């Protein structure tokens, strides 16, 4: 909070105002641009790698907006200090939970700054998050009405239910979050037979026939030799990366990778270097340097190099440049770990994820990871790959040894929904869902752009970030949309860079055209109200966040 207010000079770097020409040189793979020279640029660089146009645009932050955003944070911080001062002198009532009297002389449990942010900024707009719902998280949800009489310090439930809110927030890409139909029936049957839990780990007494069935199906779905499923998506990353790499290995990780990948990388003890988001030059430079220079200090060559990328980045809506990543990975003999948490089911003509989207061979990705939370409407995660890899994980994965295995009814939900996507249930329903999602995505994104919003990401990505920038607009957008019966996700610092607060829509195959049109109409209205239509349609649309030549490095001791 204090940082941006203290050094406004950092602003041109942070929002990528360093010039379009600059960006085009470094990150010049964007296709389908109005400017013909950039088009040529693309062709020169990527010849045959892409089989279809790769439209990914990031409009840069208008300078005025950036400045105002910083001013906004500055004002908030000032008021924060003022109110903290008042609280200290007991002029204003402090509503924080407090330490026990007996433990007042202990070292404080958490840091002041975290507290400051929570008390003075997050608390003002806290009602935009953790909204409790009480129905299926489908295209429309029912929400529990809650009010706060003390500026969000506490919430009271009125007991009323707000019905039929259009759900633009859940990751229900293919619409399998249902409480009727084949999936629910199958899950109900398994639930009555097996019960809800497992009460053991895979390696001890928790390896059910259902798990084996699921894993065979996943392998078939992904087109890999073998697969393994885990009880939690987050833990799939954080508990398996440490099994794959360790000391003396190098991890190259995209700067916007999910917290679970970051945690897994840290727990592994390997050296971590970060490359710029989806920036292939940055990745190649790191790869080349790593192999040429070897490990720092000891100068030994790296044992192995693992590249961590995601299929769709959940905050940017961008799609990984997989063809280029694979080309680089092959050239530099490194291994590729692809996290398809958001892309599995949501991309590709038959929902097989980003590999299919680009028409690539799944064998070229060493570790195919994904989750069941999103497209499959269940919970958990998987890893697919060569048989040797999965055998190794079955033996050494932290999850297989120490954590409870997947709940049987959840397994059944995955099996049924996956079979449906594959068309093995004898219907074309799954395929239609995949197509519907792709259509919804294109339509929704195109309309939003036409309205003049700044929209990030790839035109085929069902994750659609709409830029809000200013901190006050985070809360305002969330509330105004809810007033109009639309549930949206808004995100600000620390999940995004400090000035790039945004709203995020997740499209679903369950959204009908009417639902989308209603949503679009309301979004446009709120957009006018809050003056969110920032776009100048100046699509020199490269995401050129600051790119200093130094690499961030993290070594675990």
């Amino acid at each position, binding site marked *: 909070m204090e940082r941006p207010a203290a050094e406004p000079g950092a602003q041109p770097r942070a929002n990528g105002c360093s010039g379009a020409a600059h960006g085009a040189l470094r990150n010049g793979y964007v296709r389908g641009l109005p400017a013909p020279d950039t088009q040529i640029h693309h062709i020169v660089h990527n010849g045959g790698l892409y089989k279809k146009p790769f439209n990914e645009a990031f409009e840069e932050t208008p300078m005025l907006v950036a400045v105002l955003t910083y001013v906004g944070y500055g004002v908030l911080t000032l008021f924060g200090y003022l109110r903290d001062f008042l609280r200290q002198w007991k002029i204003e009532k402090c509503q924080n939970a407090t330490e026990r009297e007996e433990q007042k002389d202990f070292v404080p449990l958490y840091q002041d700054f975290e507290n400051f942010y929570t008390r003075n900024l997050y608390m003002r707009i806290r009602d935009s998050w953790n909204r409790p719902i009480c129905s299926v998280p489908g295209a429309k949800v029912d929400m529990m009405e809650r009010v706060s009489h003390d500026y969000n310090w506490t919430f009271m439930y009125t007991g009323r239910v707000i019905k039929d809110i259009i*759900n633009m927030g*859940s990751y229900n890409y293919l619409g399998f*979050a249902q409480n009727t139909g084949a999936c629910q029936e199958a899950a109900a049957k398994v639930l009555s037979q097996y*019960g*809800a839990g497992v009460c053991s780990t895979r390696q001890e007494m928790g390896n059910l026939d259902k798990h084996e069935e699921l894993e065979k199906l996943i392998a078939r779905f992904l087109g890999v030799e073998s697969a393994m499923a885990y009880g939690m998506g*987050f833990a799939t990353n954080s508990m398996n990366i440490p099994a794959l790499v360790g000391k003396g290995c190098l991890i190259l990780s995209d700067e916007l990778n999910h917290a679970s990948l970051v945690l897994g990388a840290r727990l592994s003890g390997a050296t971590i270097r970060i490359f710029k988001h989806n920036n292939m030059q940055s990745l190649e430079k790191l790869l080349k340097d790593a192999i040429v220079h070897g490990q720092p200090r000891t100068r030994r060559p790296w044992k192995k190099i693992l590249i961590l990328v995601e299929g769709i980045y959940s905050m940017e809506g961008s799609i990984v440049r997989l063809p280029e990543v694979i080309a680089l990975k092959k050239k530099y003999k490194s291994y590729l770990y692809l996290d398809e948490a958001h892309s599995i089911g949501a991309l590709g003509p038959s929902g097989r994820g980003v590999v299919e989207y680009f028409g690539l061979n799944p064998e070229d990705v060493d570790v195919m990871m994904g989750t069941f939370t999103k497209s499959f409407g269940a919970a958990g995660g998987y890893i697919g790959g060569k048989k040797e890899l999965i055998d190794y994980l079955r033996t050494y994965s*932290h999850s297989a040894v120490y954590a409870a295995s997947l709940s049987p009814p959840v397994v059944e939900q995955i099996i049924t929904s996956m079979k449906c996507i594959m068309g093995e249930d004898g219907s074309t329903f799954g395929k239609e869902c995949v197509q519907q999602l792709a259509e919804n995505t294109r339509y929704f994104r195109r309309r939003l752009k036409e309205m003049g919003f700044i929209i990030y990401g790839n035109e085929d990505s069902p994750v659609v970030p709409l830029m809000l920038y200013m901190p006050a607009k985070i809360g305002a957008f969330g509330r105004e949309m809810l007033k109009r019966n639309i549930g949206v996700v808004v995100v600000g610092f620390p999940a995004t860079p400090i000035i790039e607060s945004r709203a995020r829509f997740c499209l679903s195959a369950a959204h009908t055209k009417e639902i989308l049109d209603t949503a679009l109409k309301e979004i446009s209205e709120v957009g006018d109200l809050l003056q969110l239509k920032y776009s100048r349609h100046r699509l020199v649309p490269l995401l050129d966040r600051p790119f200093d030549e130094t690499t961030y490095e993290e070594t675990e001791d």
Partner: protein
Amino acid sequence: MAAAVGVGQQWVLVEMVQAFYEAPAYHLILEGILILWIIRLLFSKTYKLQERSDLTPKEKEELIEEWQPEPLVPPVSKDHPALNYNIVSGPPTHKITVNDKECINFASFNFLGLLDNEKVKNAAQASLKKYGVGTCGPRGFYGTFDVHLELEERLAKFMRTEEAIIYSYGFATIASAIPAYSKRGDIVFVDEAACFAIQKGLQASRSNIKLFKHNDMVDLERLLKEQESEDQKNPRKARVTRRFIVVEGLYMNTGDVCPLPELIKLKYKYKVRIFLEESLSFGVLGEHGRGITEHFGINIDDIDLISANMENSLASIGGFCCGRSFVIDHQRLSGQGYCFSASLPPLLAAAAIEALNIMEDNPDIFQTLQGKCKRIHRALQGISGLKLVGESFSPALHLQLEESCGSRENDVKLLKRVVDYCMNSGIALTQARYLEKEEKCLPPPSIRVVITVEQTEQELDKAASLIKEAAQSVLN
């Protein structure tokens, strides 16, 4: 004065010039050479800098060409004991079918037998009908369901704490809770027998870790004293260094109970916070199943944070932390496994709520379990070749080899034969599995015997005598 000095200097100069004329030629030549030498020394580099080692692009390419990475994973031998899992067909309940053999289950942590409970199943079914399976989002983004709020409230009420927070995975609970508070530079005193989830949480926190000997309060106090004298040397640092003790109620790896009353004394003496992991003791110990605090009759507010998973007694999935709001609420923004993961499927939360109902309605269930634990604990004494480890009231006991036969690998194989023998005669057992290279203090190989309320006295006796028989035939 100035003039006098000037005259003096002049005289010195004159003398020097005179001496110059009078000096012999060889002397002058020698001096000249010396002066030149000094000049040379002054202007030449004393050592040669290494040649700049910039590689040409071609050399770089050769290096890249030359580099051969290790394979992504080393091959696993086909008969690795951990590679080939038992296959359980059908539900993993009291009667279990393992590798096509019907057995009585002495391996799953289904202490209260709630996995098979019709009421629990019905509650889960009702929830499934209302909400479907998945939540399709993290708690922050429309992944908070009314059942989650209800479960949190119920857990807090059950444990008699201010607040509870649920996680969607048991392992992630303590592993996320620790790094939410303990950061780089903080100090954590931890029992060396702590389970793997605690170890990972500590690693993620990057704090200073001080291991004390298992359940050894003298050793812990020694470390605390050491730290105290360290703090006195550097009081400024000490004022910002948080200190924690992390212990388990009942130890997963040993079946021992932690000496909580002594720990509380140390807590106030040295101003250290206590985090307690109760996955094994929650729903087992105490008159109402509230765990180790109730067992020892300790005010629960003296413990800063209690964490447990819902995968054992509650027979669901996930985990929870409870304590005062001041402590717990912090995790809602900084517990990684809470913020960044999809929330618990509602049907599992509903199952946990119903399990809590059953626990509240039938408090004698805990007495029954205790009785059974004690019965088998007695019956398993004095098996030749096997040593019983764990408290008499622990629902998970370890049978270790009295004498190792040399290598861990062989010990594991030997114990596997005991397990197989029992499995063939209808008692399902398992060895406690560990990642040998990853554990901080690797426990010796053991067979874990898990006691549940569903096991009848005959079954308990049968299991004990069968294990005895197996030990005799395999080990002697």
